[in-house]
Structure formats: C-alpha cells, structure tokens
C-alpha cells in the first residue's frame, strides 16, 4: 500500500539548497561573528535571513535598573546594524517563552535549512539540529587568520548530510574555517536545552 505524504511534507523533504537562514542575535559583540556569517552566506547564495533574538520577560517583582525588554531589543537592533550591510532586508523575530519550542515552530513554518548560533551559546546544537531538521552552525571568532571558525551539527539523514556539505563548501569558500561535524545522536543532547540561550542578564 502506498503512503501518501502531504504536499507540505514533500516540499520539506525536497532539498533545494539554502533558501532560508536563521541566525540568533543576542546583542552581544562576541556574537557578531554569527551575524556576519549569515550576511556572507545570504549574499553568496541568495538565501533570505531571519534574525531571532531571545526575549526574556523579567519577573515583575524583581527590581531592574532599566527596562530589560527595551534594552534587549536595542542591543539586537544595534547588532543588526553592526553586521548587516542592508539591515532593512533582515526580519527580526522575538523568541519569547520557552525559546527552543518557539525556535522549532519558526523553523518549521519558514522551512529554515540553516540555524546559526553564536559560538558562546551553542549548547545543545546537535539536539536543535535534530529537532528542527536543520543544519546548525556555531561560529567562533577568528583566531587563526580565517574569517571565523564554524562548527556544524547536522541531523542524521541524507538531506541533513547534504545540506551540511553545502554549508561547509560555501563557508570555506568565504574564508571560514570549518571544523568537523558534531554527531547529532549524542546521549547528552537528546533534548533541546531548557536553559536560557546564554547568560541573559539584561544588557547594560
């Protein structure tokens, strides 16, 4: 008996290159490398970029010197202007609540093929790759004369391996060093991280 898949699933399974890239912007200068990689990849492959920032709603009972939500938005906005040549073309999405779940929803709706994380916030990259069925690239700042260092985590599937190969080739062509791919079936990474993306105290 033949299994009939919905058209949306068929479209999801078909590999048609890098069309949609998502990048986590945490507003911190050490996370700029991720934004720069997204900008370079979008420019080289014509992919669209969706910037996402994790918005932590503070406990209203806690005293904050400044408005943390506004500070987070301003920091993300400033980061976009630092890394993007045409920031007006980027779309900024706020991930509120349980951010891994929200990230999964956005990636599923947008059919994101590549998620770029800052190097200091890539805990659980393999789990994110598997959950979102997308390649996850963690970007560290340059230390060896390259533009930066990229570590890839891909879902264990033919499509995932293929996409990881495409990303690796383009990133290397753009001058990034590409490290080996992380296994996506590590036991410690079985679930997406439940902790915040990084030490997300409100930016000063």
């Amino acid at each position, binding site marked *: 008996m033949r299994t009939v898949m919905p058209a949306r699933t068929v479209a999801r399974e078909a590999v048609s290159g890098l069309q949609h890239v998502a990048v986590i912007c945490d507003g911190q200068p050490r996370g700029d490398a991720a934004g720069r990689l997204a900008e370079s990849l979008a420019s080289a492959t014509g992919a669209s970029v969706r910037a996402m920032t994790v918005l932590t709603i503070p406990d209203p009972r806690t005293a904050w010197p400044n408005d943390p939500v506004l500070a987070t938005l301003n920091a993300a906005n400033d980061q976009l202007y630092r890394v993007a040549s045409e920031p007006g073309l980027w779309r900024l999405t706020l991930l509120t609540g349980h951010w891994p779940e929200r990230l999964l929803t956005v990636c599923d709706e947008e059919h994101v093929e590549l998620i770029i994380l800052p190097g200091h916030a890539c805990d659980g990259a393999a789990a994110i790759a598997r959950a979102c069925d997308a390649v996850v690239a963690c970007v560290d700042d340059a230390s060896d004369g390259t533009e930066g260092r990229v570590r*890839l985590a891909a879902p264990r599937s033919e499509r995932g391996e293929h996409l990881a190969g495409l990303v690796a080739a383009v990133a290397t*062509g753009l001058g990034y060093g590409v490290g080996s791919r992380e296994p996506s079936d590590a036991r410690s990474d079985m679930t997406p991280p439940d902790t915040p993306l990084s030490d997300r105290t409100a930016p000063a």
Partner: protein
Amino acid sequence: MDNRHSSDAWDQRPRGTAIGWLRPPPLGSIVVATDGGDDSDAALLAGAFLAARTGAVTSVVSVCETARWGLRNGRVEVAAAVARARHARRVCVERQVRRTVGTAASWDADVRAGALGVEVAACAARRDAELVVIGRRTHPSIDRVMGREHGFRILRASRTPVFAATAGIAGVPHEVVVAVNFGAGGTRAARLASRLVAAGGTLHVVHVMPHARRRLARPDAPFEVGRARAQLRALCDELTLADHAHIRPVLLAGDPVAEILAFATLHAADLLVCGSVTAPAGEHDMHVGPVAGALFRAAPCSVLVARQPGERWEVA
C-alpha cells in the same frame, strides 16, 4: 538614439511567489572541471555557491592530457606514465579542493586521462549533470590558434550547459543578462538562468534585432518589432522565478554581439547567458554558434552557454 523597446509598466510586474515553501526546482547534479591551477579556483567557488543555491550534488572532474607513453630507465612505458600523471593530478586537485571548499564538503574527485572536452562531457553525461562549471580567463589570440582555449574545448564537446566563472566570483549572480533568439538553445539557457538568479536579483531577457537599419526601413517593420516583443513577453511569462527576483524583457536593435556586451557592461552583469546552435546542417557536431562563441570569449563577467543538440544554424 535609444534603441531599447521595453515597457516600464510590464517591468514592474511582481514576479516570483510569496508562498514560503514553494521553491525553485533543484538542480540534480553539477560537475566542476578543474586542472588544479589557480585559474580554476573560481570554478570550485562557483560550484559551491550554485550548489548551495540549487541544492545540487557537486563533483569534481579533472582531465590529464598527458602523452600516452613515457620513458623510464630507457624503457618505453605506457600505462605507468598515465598512472603517474593521474596520481600527480589527483594530489593537485585534492589540495585545491581542500583549499577552496574544504574537505567537509565531501566532493567526489574524478581524475581521467584523455581528451579534455570529450572526457568532461562524458563525465557530465554519466553523472546526468545539469551544469558543467569551469574557470574562465582571457586568452591571447595565439591560444585560439594553438587550441589552448580549454574552456572553449569543453564547450564544444559538451551537451550539458557550461558555466564559465570569472576570478573573484563572490556568490550567485544578481544581475543576469540572458541573450535570446527564441531558438531552443536560448530558451533552455533562459530557463536554467531563472533557477540560478539570486533572491532579489534581476533577469534581463534581451533580444537583439539584427540588421536593424535595413529591416526598420521596410514597410512591415512595426509588425516585426511587435512580433519580437510578443515573443519576448511570452518567453518571460514562461519563466518562473522565486524569492522576489525580477524579470525584465529588453528589445534592442543592432549588432547582436556588440549590443549584448554593451548592455551587460552597462548593467554590471554578474552573468551573461546565451544559447548556442551546434553546427550548420551536414557538418559535425562540435561547433559553437558565432554569437555564443564571441560572447563566451569577450564577456566582461561569468558566462553560461547552453547548446541545444540538433539545433543547427542557418547559413545565409
């Protein structure tokens, strides 16, 4: 005199799709031909960018055009000489792949011995490739006489469209000029180009009416211009673009090669696309059309030429 006949209102028509999951059809396979030298780096980079854009599986082919025999310790060796040359070439190509796109890309490398054009074409046919990517550089005139235009030799032998990438290529093309004469080769080239253009890019579909002065003096000149415009718009309607790329039909008059090169230069084209006929009727099949040949040699940017098997140019 402005010899352009384009409709601005039509140019601004929204093209592409706003549906997120409707995507351009992927390319099946891309073959990158390289000789391991620095001039071929652009081919590997272009292969990486185009593969990322289209989702194609990429492989590398290199051809040693070595002598079929060699001397070692005073003895004639045949197979050993070829094997040595292939081994040296493989080392060179693997080093180049490592340098340009890295080993994580996992590209297959196929090193062959034989005639360059024939072997590359055979490899592309065997892998059912939809595109052959090569590096492109300007050759002195003597190379044309001596048959050292390697890109042209591949173009002659290949039934697969050939993408010749210039040095310094930085990504998939944004400004693409497609020269069409409404033949099968040009249409095939235009369809292929519509799948390669970057998001937000522009596809200029250009038709040049040759012998303009002589034709435009005739009483049926308005009819000819109208027919060309209708054909141009029909072709543009047939093309499907994604990601909000724009398509722009342009009708020019004059010498085809000069007009197209001037248009490409004026618009800072990243890619010049054209079709090519194969040969005058009755001759062998390794001809490239005169316009396509001239554009391939003189274009100021990367070039994509699609030859249409069986389509032959008419000798006046």
